[in-house]
């Protein structure tokens, strides 16, 4: 199964409530995916590069990390620790150096970008949301996922969203059947997936297409030609939000749009707490059809 939720605000009024609304949506989808949960949220732009990191032993790994990085980069580094995750603000241009540092320490990099932060863990959506304080987060758009694993193990790194390039993230309901071949092709293009998870291959595919100059709509359209299997994808970029379903469209999907937002849910239940939902335009996205919004 798996549950997907997404919310893209068209106006700024609801920004302070983004995390609260997304948390309700995510918890409602618990019975579609109780294994793990995750969320990517696009908040205020950082003064530098944002990097979300994760450790199974945060007390040890995050202790003194801010000072060590400041010394390494000879510039200002800020660190905000949230449970097993920490959001670092780094000088621009330091990504490669910091990634190498994290790899050496065994600390996982969940995502990088200017505005995106990403939090995911094994456990019930309500517990994951509460550990990271997602209700209190503000932002312009976000996507979330509740996982019922089929293709790879129930681990932190197997949880969604997957982020494979700056300010990009993807969540998936379904399973891909040509992910091994795609994994090799993407590795040759420099977008090698880090896990054995099929969804990460789709995230790398979108990232590779965007890096080649495709726009979000073209990259999503490409999944219909190049990825085989069942999928409903919801994708976030710094300024955009996109949805695509495979041509068979077995995996459920529903969307709602008002003057204030565009919302995605695996089921209508996810929308029940959204403001103005009774007067929203509610529809099921068509199979093999790309939908995207950019601001």
């Amino acid at each position: 199964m798996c549950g997907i939720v997404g919310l893209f605000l068209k106006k700024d009024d609801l920004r302070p409530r983004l995390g609260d609304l997304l948390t309700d949506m995510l918890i409602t989808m618990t019975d579609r995916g109780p294994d793990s949960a995750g969320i990517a949220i696009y908040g205020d732009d950082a003064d530098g590069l944002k990097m979300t990191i994760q450790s199974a032993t945060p007390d040890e790994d995050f202790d003194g990390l801010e000072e060590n990085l400041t010394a390494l980069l000879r510039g200002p580094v800020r660190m905000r620790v949230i449970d097993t995750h920490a959001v670092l603000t780094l000088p621009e241009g330091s990504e490669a150096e910091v990634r190498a540092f994290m790899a050496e320490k065994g600390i996982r990099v969940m995502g990088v970008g200017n505005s995106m932060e990403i939090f995911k863990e094994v456990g019930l959506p309500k517990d994951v949301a509460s550990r990271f304080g997602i209700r209190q987060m503000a932002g312009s758009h976000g996507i979330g996922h509740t996982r019922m694993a089929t293709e790879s193990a129930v681990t932190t790194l197997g949880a969604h969203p997957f982020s494979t390039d700056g300010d990009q993230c993807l969540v998936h309901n379904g399973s891909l059947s040509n992910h091994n071949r795609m994994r090799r092709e993407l590795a040759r293009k420099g977008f090698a997936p880090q896990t054995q998870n099929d969804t990460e291959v789709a995230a790398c595919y979108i990232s590779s297409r965007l890096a080649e100059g495709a726009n979000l709509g073209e990259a999503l359209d490409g999944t219909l030609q190049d990825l085989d299997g069942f999928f409903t994808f919801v994708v976030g970029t710094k300024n955009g939000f996109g949805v695509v379903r495979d041509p068979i469209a077995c995996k459920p999907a529903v969307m709602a749009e008002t003057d204030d937002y565009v919302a995605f849910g695996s089921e209508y239940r996810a929308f029940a707490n959204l403001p103005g939902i009774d007067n929203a335009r509610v529809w099921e996205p068509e199979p093999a059809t790309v939908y995207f919004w950019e601001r």
Partner: protein
Amino acid sequence: MQTIDMASTELRELNSMLQSQEGNGGDAEWVIENTRGSHALAVGLNAPIKVTVKGSAGYYCAGMNKEATVHVTGSVGPGVAENMISGSVIVEGDASQYAGATGHGGLLVIKGNASSRCGISMKGVDIVVHGNVGHMSAFMAQSGNLVILGDAGDALGDSLYEARLFVRGSVKSLGADCIEKEMRPEHLELLADLLERAGADASPQEFRRYGSARKLYHFNVDHADEY
């Protein structure tokens, strides 16, 4: 009339209350409020009661219906009125996948659009969709009538048996063994009755009829080498 608030009522409690109306002269009209997209609302009904579901419903609303009239004011999730025996189910909004699947009788009316696999394996139910239907609608449909006022998606009526399909709009493609057939006076009469019962403002003359070419019914000896 009795009103049930789903904010304070368990789903099983609701359904067992509605299911126990058979022959006991209970309240004939029920209104269900605060549905918030819940699954399996008003399923397995077995008496001629009237149930209004206010708002949108999730999976399998009004499944296995017998005799009751269920009216949903919002949209419904996958599997609305699945395996209906008799009675009627009316949806004001859209329906998700496999609306009216395997239905044996009764009338399902969807005033918005239905998505893929509408009327899959229908066995006698009448389905009237005011909007469009998605791909693989009426797949393996055995009997009954599927009326589509809008357009039909890919592979309409694939592997069709004896169900009749009427489409007013365009058909993206026909499935295996589904062909257009002549509209005879008895079909116009049947269609006029269905349109009236479904509250649809359309003339039977605007529709085309599709049915089975019956080529898949029997083994074709020319295909023997393929096995």
